[in-house]
């Protein structure tokens, strides 16, 4: 453009000079462009190098992210407790809780999307037992806290559908008992402090929390199905007789394993509240009772073993009350002038049993009771064990006589179960245990009675159920044998006639005893269902009669009408009427 406006005379020089100038400009521009390209390329290369270096560093030297071992991740916070078949009874479980977090939405606005009253109403629709006004106040107060400690997954889904970010449901490791209140007295519970309380949770606390041992579940001796049947039937017996409480135990006679142990009313270990904590007391191992006539077979067995009773047909007077040191021992009604031993057991005669105990003597009865562990706390793992009320010193005549029919001595139902196990298993007493015993590893125990005495007692116990007071426990085909016991509870100024403890102690099958079943009802009343009667024959014996057919097949005892213990040598001794 400059060239065109210039004068013709100056054209050549101007043009040449202009060309040179243009060329140098172009060169400069090109150089600049090249430099720029070079810089950009350098920058890229640098970035790429840096990236490569970083990758290399990461690949070579970077520590792996804190990695949790798979075994550690799967290790429960607290070990499981399972029954003898591996059914879980207690497990660590990541349950949902409902937590209110007012800060979830952030900012200075209200903590909830919807008004608090609406959210509270929606929550009450999910949890009908909640108090709406209380809930509204809590939501409006905007203080963080638990709304509920444990919710079901489907409830969590429904809360999620409300669209409130402030309602969080964190998964928390909790102790969970899938069977609810079943076997609660055996299991116990885990408190907010993470420590086990009451039952095996307390006993196994160390083992269940130690990382080296909590991976393997602790196996108990109980069988869930048997426990369920026992609790079910005891609960029914308790309802029918309007009793204050009930207790039951099923014991393996050869190993001392506890198959089921129930104390009713029970509590729910998933939710310990005031109503539940009142029922934590264990009637089977902690409460001592005068168990009454169910002690008679023990005294008779001691007499047979000592050679005091050698003739089953020998008759004892039974229609005159015994007067010993100012006390009078009498029967509920007269069974005739005299009774022999089988008849005395069938009719549950205090007078005859007391006479036999008198002949046996206090020292020998005392020794038998000691051998059965009646003078010490029951042998079981559970922490709550009651101390028996045991007559101190040398037993006087009257003490010996009253103990023989279960008065003046108070023991737990577990004591009675262990004693009956020894009576029918051949005479060997073994401590009860709640841990599963491997085959061949049963405790050695100690011999209390001769095997011959045990064999005779099987016959006598079977007779009582076949012909005597225990007839309602006679489950067809299961060859049940046992003894009733209805003891008046001691109160202020003597025994209270209106409050009884009704017990039925049984074992089955009598031709080869495998299990002892004890059912006890605390203060049963006479109702229409028990024909207006309060004694064990009408309330505790039917419980055993219903439990045995339910548990027998589960425990490998098949009902069989063609088998029974041979009682043909005793049968002729039984009078057809109420004694003679």
């Amino acid at each position, binding site marked *: 453009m400059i060239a065109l406006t210039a004068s013709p005379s100056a054209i050549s020089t101007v043009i040449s000079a202009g060309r040179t100038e243009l060329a140098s400009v172009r060169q400069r521009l090109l150089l600049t462009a090249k430099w720029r390209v070079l810089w950009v390329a350098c920058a890229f290369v640098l970035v790429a190098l840096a990236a490569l270096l970083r990758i*290399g560093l990461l*690949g*070579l030297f970077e520590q*792996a992210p804190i*990695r949790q071992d*798979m075994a550690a*991740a*799967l290790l429960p916070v607290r070990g499981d407790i399972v029954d003898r078949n591996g*059914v*879980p009874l207690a*497990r660590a*479980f*990541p349950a949902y809780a409902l937590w209110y977090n007012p800060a979830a939405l952030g900012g200075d606005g209200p903590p909830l999307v919807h008004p608090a009253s609406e959210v509270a109403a929606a929550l009450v629709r999910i949890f009908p037992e909640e108090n709406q006004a209380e809930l509204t106040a809590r939501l409006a107060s905007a203080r963080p806290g638990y709304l509920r400690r444990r919710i079901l*997954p489907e409830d969590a889904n429904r809360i999620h559908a409300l669209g409130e970010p402030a309602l969080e449901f964190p998964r928390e490791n909790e102790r*969970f008992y*899938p*069977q*609810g*209140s*079943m076997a609660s007295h055996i299991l116990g519970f885990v408190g907010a402090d993470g420590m086990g309380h009451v039952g095996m949770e307390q006993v196994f606390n160390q083992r269940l929390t130690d990382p080296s041992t909590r991976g393997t579940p602790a196996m108990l001796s109980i069988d*869930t*199905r048997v*426990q*369920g049947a026992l*609790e*079910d039937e005891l609960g029914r017996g308790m309802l029918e007789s309007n009793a204050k409480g009930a207790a039951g135990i099923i014991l393996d006679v050869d190993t001392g394993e506890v198959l089921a142990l129930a104390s009713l009313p029970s509590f729910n270990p998933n939710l310990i509240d005031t109503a539940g904590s009142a029922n934590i007391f264990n009637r089977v191992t902690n409460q001592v009772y005068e168990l009454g006539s169910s002690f008679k077979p023990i005294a008779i067995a001691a007499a047979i073993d000592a050679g005091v009773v050698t003739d089953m047909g020998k008759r004892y007077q039974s229609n005159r009350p015994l007067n010993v040191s100012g006390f009078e021992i009498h029967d509920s009604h007269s069974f005739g002038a005299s009774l022999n031993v089988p008849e005395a057991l069938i009719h549950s005669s205090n007078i005859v049993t007391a006479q036999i105990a008198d002949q046996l003597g206090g020292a020998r009865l005392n020794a038998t009771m000691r051998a059965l562990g009646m003078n010490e706390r029951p042998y079981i793992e559970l922490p709550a064990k009651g101390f028996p009320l045991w007559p101190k010193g040398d037993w006087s005549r009257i003490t010996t006589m009253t103990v023989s029919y279960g008065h003046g001595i108070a023991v737990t139902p577990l004591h009675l179960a262990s004693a009956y196990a020894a009576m029918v298993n051949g005479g060997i007493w073994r401590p009860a245990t709640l841990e599963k015993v491997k085959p061949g590893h049963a405790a050695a125990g100690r011999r209390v009675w001769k095997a011959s005495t045990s064999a005779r007692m099987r016959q006598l116990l079977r007779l009582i159920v076949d012909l005597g007071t225990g007839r309602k426990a006679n489950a*067809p*085909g299961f060859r049940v044998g046992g003894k009733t016991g209805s003891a008046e509870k001691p109160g202020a100024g003597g025994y209270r006639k209106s409050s009884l403890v009704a017990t039925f102690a049984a074992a089955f099958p009598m031709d080869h005893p495998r299990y002892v079943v004890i059912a006890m009802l605390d203060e049963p009343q006479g109702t229409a269902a028990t024909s207006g009667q309060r004694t064990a024959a009408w309330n505790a014996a039917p419980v055993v009669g219903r439990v045995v*057919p*339910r548990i*027998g*097949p589960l425990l490998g005892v*098949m*009902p*069989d*009408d063609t088998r029974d213990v041979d009682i043909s040598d005793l049968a002729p001794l039984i009078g057809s009427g109420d004694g003679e």
Partner: protein
Amino acid sequence: MNLTQDRLRSVGWAVCLTVCAAFVLALTFRVNAVKSQVRLAERQIVTLRQERLFLETEFETRANQQQLKTLNDVEFGYQAPTSGQYLENERQLAALGKPRGAGAPAPIRVASVAGLEEDSGFPAMVSPLTGKVLIGEAAAAEVPRGSARVPANSSDLRDRLSRVERREQGPE
């Protein structure tokens, strides 16, 4: 020349070293990649196991003894089996099929369901002579000696047990 050879050798070494380093690097990356895959798989296993535990526990809770008892009370009403419902051994089972001796008591029938023959879907066997429905012993008596034994196409145990072939009484 020497200089070029030396240079070549050193270049060769350098290339060799670089290639080796590249391989080591690649291998390290590969190992780390596999390791992280294993970690992921482990994490997945843990999640699945926990999920299984969760579901198992939920199942145990819904099917606990008390629930099952309630369900049985309301829906089924099953009761513990009685001694008549047990067979002790094969011998006892075989005894059920034995022909009945003269004057023997009626056989014990097990697992018998009354009224099943009406609903079994099979036509009842009819006597060709009288046109009457044959049940039990009458049917057994009808089986002619020496003829082919046709297997019973009856579905219930009662019919099968009652279709026992007997020796004819009286003179041979």
